[in-house]
């Protein structure tokens, strides 16, 4: 298993420039103010910094609360980077673009 991770890490570096896909999952809770803000901020960040190479999935925990357990979500909204590995979480409404980009490793720390 360790080997697999290492391999993918290597791939990650190689592929970033070549336009790797970013698979992001946003957990929200209905239409609370922060959930709406998070949706809007995510859209904006992806369009500006990951144009054409992202895929987002929005999970409304009010509709399907059982999904919170899978990614061990505690606070909402939370953004989860599914791909590229490793899995990363950014908690909050994504209002601080810089923090999000650093958290997602879109820009180096």
């Amino acid at each position: 298993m360790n080997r697999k991770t290492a391999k993918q890490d290597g791939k990650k570096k190689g592929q970033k420039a070549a336009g790797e896909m970013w698979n992001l999952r946003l957990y929200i809770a209905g239409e609370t103010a922060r959930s709406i803000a998070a949706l809007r901020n995510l859209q904006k960040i992806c369009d500006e910094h990951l144009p054409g190479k992202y895929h987002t999935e929005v999970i409304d925990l009010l509709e399907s609360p059982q999904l919170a357990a899978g990614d061990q979500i505690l606070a909402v909204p939370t953004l989860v980077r599914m791909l590229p590995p490793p899995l990363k979480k950014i908690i909050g409404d994504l209002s601080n673009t810089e923090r999000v980009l650093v958290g997602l490793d879109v820009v180096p720390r």
Partner: protein
Amino acid sequence: MKSQCGRNLRAELEHTQARLAELEATMNAIYRGEVDALAVGGPQGSRIFTLQNPEEPYRILAERMSEGVATLSAEGTILFCNQRLAKMTGLPPERMLGAPFVSKLCEEDRAGFPGLVQLALQHNVRSEGHLLQENESVLPVQLSLSRILLQESGEGICLVATDLSERVRAEEELRLSRERQLRLKDELLSHVSHELRTPLACIHQFTTILLDGISGELTADQSGVLEIILKSANQLRTMIDDLLETARIEAGKVKVARSCVVLQDAVREAIQMLRGTAAEKGIDLEREGHSELLVYADPRRVLQILLNLIGNALKFTPAGGHVEVKYGVAPGEPGYALVTVEDDGCGISEPVQARVFERLYQEGGSIDQGHEGLGLGLAICKELVSSHKGKIWVESQPGKGSTFSFTLPVYSLERILSPVLTENGTLRRAVSLILVRAVPKPTTAAIEQWSRTRRKLNELLCRCSLPDKDVVLPSVRAQPAGETFAILAGTDASGAELLAQRIRQQMKRCQELSENCVAQVSSQVVRATQELETPTKEDVEAIAREVACAVSQAMNMRSGSR
């Protein structure tokens, strides 16, 4: 399997750290008001709480999390604390409220806490500490302090306490498993070295038989080849001995049996053993020093150190060079003897000087340069010298030569008496002297042979004496009439007589001793005390002087009276 265990523990640690980081991020997001819903896991699955009031998620989170949480006033008084923190201290939550948080910390951590609070009012701080628990035990915790605004009374502190006992345990286990692995490695090393020696001894033996012509005449060529085999076998044996020695040192198995050593004798012996090598290379090997100087050390170890250093000097000095061993009282350190081994060989550059005492270090991988050895010799020397409480160092100028120096404590009777005189701070009931007066038999005329015999006798006495209770004293010579050896023992008359009997028996059993000397073993009490006393340091010193005086009188009288 062991390393698997280590990996699991490490993974556990990393997991805990990741979880901590995530919790911190959650708390920060809540502070910033970026979160307005919480997914709370329960028996019926997750439930979602959406909240308009920003304080709500804080409270739910605080109650649900496995970390201890408290809100403190700027003065450190507990204004709020969650169930978990109360549980960590073993007190009910209501007894926590209103108390100063510092009182929940263990004694050693209290002084630093107000400063931590002051810092936290500027920026987030993190520190490790120990919470007092009900049953007097302490719980290792990580404390995270952050500034918050309290609605009514201005600034306050949010404190998060994370239980570190799991982590401490995991680290401890990691350390233990590492130690186990090291021990296994040492055992393997020691075992393998032993196993390697057996076939090597065989090679050595049969090569010598061939070389001696016992199994038939050899041509010059054949002898030459056998000489090379023999030389290589010897090199290999030295390397294996070094490995074995290192394994022993690592395992803490090297016992230093200290006694009184005439430094000059040790140097003379070492030089004699290496004279052949020196002559072969055409190197001048000399010694010079204080002939009477005694050191308090293990004679075999002293020889080992000398052989190593002189052997090295010979190795790195070209033909026609010069190696000199000097010994005397260390300048500025009257309690120590200084031995230097000086050569005019290739020298050692400064960066290398700093590393020569490291294990397996060899300049420029000198195996290629045809120098034998594993690079363990100097590391072993360093261990041996420091186990004698001495120092070892090197001074060198590249191209001009090197000087290796080491110190050993000078022998003095008073210095070594304290284990004999006292036990756990009280005086022993009695101190006795066992004297062995040995006279060489007429057939043992050669001094050479006598020196072997007396070494044998010394070894025997070391073997018979108890390291924490008895000391083997330096012998007093009265050539040609003989020599008096002695053990000073922390025991009374009957104990001393038992020891004397043991020595008599062992001497009878030793062929070399019974062939070469006539010996008389007797015992006597030097100092007896009626009651156990609790002496001061000065008392012990005074008694040591008194005993030392009595001992030297007894030894001189015995040897002089015949």
